[in-house]
């Protein structure tokens, strides 16, 4: 809205400088962590312009805890959860958007409770249920409470309702079954909603911590977040260069994905945010 350069631009200079300062202060914690991760421990809190750079911290962190295993666990957890959510939400959203069946509106209202009260705060009973099912300390256990996603159903239902029913009718006249219509008409026309939901859900579950902490109890199931927490808060003697290296390492996939697909991520959060 402000014209670049020119008289007005210069009059606004103090504001711009102030804003830049604000941006720099905001970047400080991350820059400080990056500094400490790419320099030898000796320099981790000493700022010398020509301090030697090193990748050694990353290698050492990677080797001093089972990070490879944690990565695999997280990747498995996230793909299982998001894939399950997408399939279940697609079926339900289609029925809520286009089919009529007894009790539909009441059921919809009951499911929407989840928008406010997420399974994540019902730790005590979800822990019991998962234990009764004999699933405690397994990777699926960390995703199962989230498989039914009211949020996904809501987003997809909104989108399905905007699809012209003429398209649907045409498919029906050609003898398409319900599932066939869903697959051939609704799903392809909702691509951007799927991307939006998937990106938002991937970043949520990649970062989820408290529920996995409660339900996982061994190296073979622990996701990255729980592994990182254990690594970052040892009982004594924290070597900060290793912790910051491990921290950046475990956040890297999502950060890199974000840098590559910035526009899609931002679009996805915006769409997912409009309730």
């Amino acid at each position, binding site marked *: 809205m402000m014209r*670049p350069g020119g008289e007005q631009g210069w009059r*606004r200079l103090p504001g*711009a400088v102030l*804003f*830049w300062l*604000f*941006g*720099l202060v*905001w970047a*400080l*914690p*991350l820059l*400080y962590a990056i500094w*400490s991760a790419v320099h030898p421990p000796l320099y981790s*809190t000493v700022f010398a312009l020509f301090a030697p750079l090193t990748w050694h911290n990353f290698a050492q962190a990677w080797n001093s805890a089972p990070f490879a295993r944690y990565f695999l666990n997280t990747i498995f957890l996230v793909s299982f959860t998001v894939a399950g959510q997408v399939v*279940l939400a697609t*079926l*339900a959203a*289609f*029925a809520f958007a286009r089919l009529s*069946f007894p009790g539909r509106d009441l059921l919809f209202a009951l*499911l929407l409770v*989840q928008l*406010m*009260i997420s399974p994540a*705060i*019902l*730790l*005590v*009973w*979800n822990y019991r*249920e998962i234990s009764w099912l004999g699933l405690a300390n397994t990777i699926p256990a960390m995703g*199962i409470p989230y*498989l*039914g*996603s*009211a949020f996904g*159903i809501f987003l997809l239902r909104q989108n399905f309702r905007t699809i012209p029913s003429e398209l649907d009718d045409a498919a029906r006249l050609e003898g398409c079954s*319900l599932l066939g219509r869903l697959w051939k008409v609704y799903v392809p026309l909702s691509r951007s909603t799927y991307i939006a939901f998937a990106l938002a859900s991937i970043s949520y579950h990649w970062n989820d*911590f*408290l529920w996995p*902490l*409660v339900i996982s109890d061994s190296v073979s199931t622990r996701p990255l*977040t729980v592994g*990182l927490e254990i690594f*970052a*808060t040892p009982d004594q003697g924290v070597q*900060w260069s290793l912790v*910051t290296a*491990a*921290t*950046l390492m*475990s956040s890297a996939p999502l*950060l890199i994905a*974000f840098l590559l697909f910035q526009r899609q*991520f931002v679009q996805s*959060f*915006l769409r997912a*945010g*409009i309730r």
Partner: protein
Amino acid sequence: MEERRLGGWLFVLPAALFIFAFTNLPLLATAVTSLYAAPIAGHGGGFVGLRNYLDLLADPGFRQSLVNNLLYAAVTVPAAMVLALAMALGVNAAIPGRAFLRLSFFLPTMLPMIAVGAIWLFFYTPQYGLVDRLTRLIGMGQINWLGDPSTALPAMMAVAIWKEAGFFMIFYLAALQNISPQLREAASLEGASRQYFFRRVTLPLLGPTTLFVAVTATISAFCVVDHVVEMTQGGPDNATSLLLYYVYDTGFRYWNVNSAAAATIVLVLILAALAATLFGLVGRRVHYR
């Protein structure tokens, strides 16, 4: 059509089953559990009515968690929102290097809370941490930010604000970019000042965004405690304990399930009150598309 009568249920069933099993059912079960007590020495078990709630009120740890959490929400929500709006306004203007600025504001939200916690633990470390070095530079004494009960909660608030503000910025930024340039041209033809335009046109148009952001921010102020688990375990002296952390601590460290259930219900009631206020607001004042 008959196919649809049953068909609809078949489509909904799998998702509904999971949502009922892990949201609605545990919600009810938690409410019931909160009215019972486990048999321990001195007390018989069984139905105890509201005794767990009265015990909670008598527990200084719970009272402090509740007060902490209300304070935490009352500070972090408005602060993150104001900063988010400032970020959006700045980034929306033609400032050189705004791509860098946008990234600097937004990246913290892409980090897991656990990573943010680790970074800020380092940032706050006495002697080595940047915060302590800066405060010493300007002549303040050494402060153990997370170790002192009077600074620990504000220090945790800063962490939450740092992580969340950039996320809310993108909603404000999108809303600002939706405001038609013609409005501004019309206003400048009429000789309206920038401040006047901001107050009378921009701010009201940001109403729905502000409502959405406020709700999202409040929910996360009550439902995200990862950094508490990692950085302070609620200490020192419960100074940083939040409600959900109290639930976790009571339920999974002391295994007092009934008391944890009662605390969960308090948390649920707060969220429900928030939901009720939200629907009231949406119904009445804020204009939604």
